[in-house]
């Protein structure tokens, strides 16, 4: 242990503790802006600089360890004045129109400036103008260079966690800024749209393309029938920035809020997660039995960030993906083809919206392959954050609403469908039904919990082996694209072998998705959100996708059997039917 004094208070902390953490242990909160524990400890913003007795200059507290006898002062006039000047300097290059910024109220820079009581800035505004400030408005990811404070978090999360390296510094000297790496444009880059840069941005510099106006327009159109589906992981997070405690922020209260917004039919994507299990599980068993997974596994295909990654970085492995559409697209196809018939309406009158914890879903629904003869599967994708903004915009107060159930026909879902939103959930759900398909009886619902992945972004992946009707199935579950790359390299080099692999682009799966609310305290929430989902599964009466009565009815009435011709047309896709904008460039 190392003994230090923080603002006169003595505290003992383990060796290698940073000054910032030591101060926290002494109950002293040092303001900071660029710092993100474990990911971005680079001392760029200089807001966390403190005075250390005996040292000439102020010292950034985020990335320097304490030493024995260190005397730290965090609130001297020198510290305060320097901190204020540095924040004023940052503000001089920040577009401070907070009223029109969607991060207002949840912006680290705004908080720090407010806390410091900065009312006027002595430094003239110095914003980027002209073509250098432009960004394509139709791309699902939007970046406002004038709100970027160059904290580098986006670069770090994309490099270190995701290994995609989309962002980098560009230019030098006073013109240094964050931009797409290797002098590329975002549309020609291999960005997978995981959105992790957005959820780790301290300001409003990065966000999804805002599609809420399109949703409002459809809701206001008397000729449109609006149908909405809610992805499993959304229920675990939507209440966070609305101030709802988890017990209030139930999916049925969300259903009520969506009806209050004016949606005609409200469904749960967990239904089509069950459908995915039927299709993907059947496909897997066929491929497994045919020896197709002898060298390389079949990969899940429900995560569009992952699909984009694989196609961008390992295009030769595209055929290893399951041909099953993602639950979002399956739901869309079923709505267009099946629900429309049930309702007796023209498929074209339906406006199909999905609420997703994801930015890549916005790109997925626009793919040329994602439609049937009845039209495109899904019309519009909104992130969890956009849903929250719509609720706020309509001044709906969900806590005052009574819980409502989902609409019938496509309403029921199993706990197995709900856990799609957490890493390992797809695999676990698939194994539950695969067991049934092979053995003709259900396993205990908790039989496959070994596949649940680590949700805290730890390196590596989870592997497990199961006996399915006398053959051993080797499975792996991985989340985060940095981990995924390692797994793929191991597979390609023959160092590991699996039959079935679940991949989620975001660490912790959709619970930690790039469309989820920002954590005001920079916490990684994928783990706790995932636990919520597993809790819902545990409390469900229905634990097996194949037992979902609505799924059984759908096969009986429309699809026939999994993998049938109709199922192929509605529920499967050709991953080779479209191209990523660019293959990955060789890194230098």
């Amino acid at each position, binding site marked *: 242990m190392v003994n230090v004094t923080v603002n006169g208070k003595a505290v003992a902390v383990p060796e290698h503790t940073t000054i910032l953490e030591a101060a926290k242990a002494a109950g002293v909160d040092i303001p900071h802006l660029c710092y993100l524990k474990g990911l971005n400890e680079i*001392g*760029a913003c200089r807001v966390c600089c403190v005075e250390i007795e005996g040292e000439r200059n102020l010292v950034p507290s985020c990335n320097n360890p304490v030493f024995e006898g260190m005397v730290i002062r965090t609130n001297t006039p020198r510290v305060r004045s320097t901190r204020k000047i540095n924040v004023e300097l940052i503000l001089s290059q920040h577009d401070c129109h907070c009223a029109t910024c969607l991060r207002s109220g949840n912006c680290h820079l705004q908080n720090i400036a407010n806390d410091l009581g900065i009312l006027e800035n002595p430094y003239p505004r110095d914003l980027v103008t002209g073509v250098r400030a432009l960004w394509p408005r139709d791309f699902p990811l939007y970046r406002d260079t004038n709100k970027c404070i160059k904290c580098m978090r986006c670069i770090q999360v994309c490099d270190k966690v995701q290994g995609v390296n989309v962002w980098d510094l560009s*230019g030098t000297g006073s013109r240094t800024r964050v931009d797409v790496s290797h002098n590329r444009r975002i549309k020609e880059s291999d960005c997978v749209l995981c959105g992790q840069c957005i959820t780790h941005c301290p300001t409003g510099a990065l966000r999804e393309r805002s599609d809420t106006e399109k949703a409002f327009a459809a809701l206001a159109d008397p000729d449109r029938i609006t149908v909405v589906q809610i992805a499993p992981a959304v229920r675990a997070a939507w209440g966070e920035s609305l101030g709802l405690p988890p017990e209030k922020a139930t999916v049925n209260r969300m259903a009520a809020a969506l009806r209050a917004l004016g949606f005609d039919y409200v469904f749960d994507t967990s239904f089509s997660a069950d459908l995915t299990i039927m299709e993907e599980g059947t496909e897997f068993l066929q491929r497994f039995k045919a020896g197709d997974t002898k060298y390389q596994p079949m990969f899940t295909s429900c995560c569009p960030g992952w699909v984009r990654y694989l196609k961008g970085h390992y295009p030769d492995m595209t055929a290893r993906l399951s041909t099953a559409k993602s639950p979002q697209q399956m739901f869309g196809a079923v709505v267009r083809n099946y629900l429309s018939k049930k309702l007796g309406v023209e498929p074209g009158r339906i406006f199909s919206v999905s609420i997703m914890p994801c930015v890549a879903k916005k790109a997925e629904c626009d793919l040329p392959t994602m439609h049937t003869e009845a039209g495109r599967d899904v019309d519009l994708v909104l992130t969890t954050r956009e849903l929250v903004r719509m609720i706020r915009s309509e001044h709906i107060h969900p806590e005052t609403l009574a819980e409502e159930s989902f609409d019938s026909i496509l309403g029921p879902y199993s706990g197995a469908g709900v856990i799609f939103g957490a890493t390992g959930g797809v695999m676990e759900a698939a194994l539950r039904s695969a067991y049934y398909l092979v053995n003709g009886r259900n396993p205990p619902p908790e039989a496959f919990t070994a596949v649940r992945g680590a949700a805290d972004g730890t390196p590596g992946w989870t592997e497990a082996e199961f006996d399915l009707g006398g053959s051993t199935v080797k499975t792996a579950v991985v989340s985060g694209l940095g981990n995924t790359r390692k797994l793929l390299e191991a597979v390609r080099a023959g160092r590991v072998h699996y039959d079935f692999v679940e991949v989620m682009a975001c660490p912790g799966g959709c619970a930690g998705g790039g469309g989820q609310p920002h954590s005001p305290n920079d916490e990684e929430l994928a783990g706790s959100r995932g636990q919520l989902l597993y809790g819902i599964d545990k409390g469900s009466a229905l634990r097996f996708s194949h037992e979902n009565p609505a799924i059984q009815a759908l096969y009986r009435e429309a699809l026939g059997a999994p993998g049938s011709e109709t199922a192929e047309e509605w529920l499967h896709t050709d991953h080779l039917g479209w191209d990523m904008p660019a293959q990955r460039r060789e890194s230098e």
Partner: protein
Amino acid sequence: MRRLSIETPDRAQQVVQDLCRDMGHRVAANPPGLCPVDLALNFLRLCHAQTCGKCVPCRIGLSQLETLIESVLDQTAPEGTIDLIESTAAAIADSADCAIGYEAAAMVLEGVRGFREDYELHAKEGRCICSLKQPVPCVTVCPAHVDIPGYIALVREGCFQDAVDLIRKDNPFPYSCAYVCEHPCEKQCRRRLVDDAINICGIKRYAVDHCGDEAPPAPAEATGKRIAVVGGGPSGLTAAYYLQLMGHSVTVFEQRERLGGMLRYGIPDYRLPPEVLQKDIDYILKTGVEVRTGVCIGTDIQVEQLRRDYDALYVAIGAHADKKLGLPGEDSENVLSAVEFLRDCGEGRPLDFTGKRVVVIGGGNVSMDATRTAIRLGAESVTCVYRRRIDDMTALPEEIEDAQAEGCQILPLQAPHRIEADENGKVAALWTKPQIIGSYGRDGRPGPRDAAEREFRIPCDYLIIAIVQRIESDNFEKGGIGTSRGALKADLSGYVPGTPNVFAGGDAVTGPATVIRAVAAGKVGAANIDSFLGYSHTIRCDVQIPPARLSNTPPCGRIQLKARNPLEARGDFALATCGMTEEEAMQEAGRCLRCDHFGYGIFKGGRTSQW
């Protein structure tokens, strides 16, 4: 009323002079990877601050150039701006009244012509061909990318063995380099912004002089792949060391009796004692590298055979042959090349120069080695003859100073013209043509031309030519390895195009260069041979780097290594420079700014822990 007064600079002027000196250091230590257009703009601004304001092109023209270049950087420049910059700069260079104006414009002109593509990229795309890559200048500039801040921090904490282990991650010649590295790492040391570069090489020498003898790490699991390395110098042994650690089975073929290459046969003992070199070699051999000395490839074994018998080949034969100058009388007796002269010394067959007059031709480090060796062999006088000025010599300044202190005469501005022999055919004198220094050449150095003076005679008993070294590439060319102007042809990965499995590096590819460049080539070769064989072994070092101290030393002089008394040193081959004392080493290590931790390094590129 005083008619004249003694002028003393006022305080402001003095401060400005200090600032100019500091700015000079700053410019000299310019970090690599900066935007050339941004730099050009800001150099121009500095130039413009120097203008007196009298003449139009300088006063207004430079200002307009600033505006134009700024618009390029802001991506607001209309079509044709770059042409306008060029024509404006040309007009200023042509018509400004004094050097302040025309030299400033000439710099802009040089830039707009030299990196026009960067101007264009800025104007059209708002992008730069350069990206910010200035994490740790010393590591960036070191050809082998040794973790310099890491080992300096370890020295500062007294962990000398760890420091040497860390160096070996990228350079298996820590001992030799501690004595003879040309230390390019010091050139752009960020400490120059404060006072002066860290004496990195001196700190390394302190580390190797104070560490124990540890065993090398155990090689990776054997791959069964066999690799032949031709040449047992720094490049070949570096490749052999890393490839052996990667689990391959390496055999080094060395033409001479002993390993070390130019380190043994080219560098005199007073700079690199053989026992110091031996420590590096012993350590490398402990990994299990097989060695076959006295085997000449191309004569004893054919290149084709090696190619067939081994999975891969690394050719690092160095540049050990000499080249004739083409002077009349060059074949006289006692006319030697520096390479053979130094090699004979390295092989323990030194000439006896007692009472002889020796002349050395050349101005590089090899000529200094020959000069200082000749004086140690008892020569009555040693004269080093050079075509240009002493300032233009390419030898390290300290080498020149030491040679002079030891009593060698340096005779600049004399171009060798012919060699006079006595009646027995022995060299009697070197005739030179006196030179006058003149205009600058393309290499940015002033060139000499014949002066209007008479030929000059320098009587001598021995003449040593230290001008050019050649690569003995004939046998390899016959073996299917392409050459270009006598050097082996290899691409940037070390691969020799057109061959199935041959890599090459070191002096044999680059021409005579430095030890550290040879080591770097060996490292590159090893990595790419490993990949070529289908592996991805990594070389790493698990030493814990001490955290950076918070404040660095305030401005403080750089510790220089002390030379022995030159009059004593000239009499033997013992080391000519003394290492640092503990006090000196600690003070010097404390000056390191830890660019791995402070600045860009902590964000990106501060440390490569494996390769």
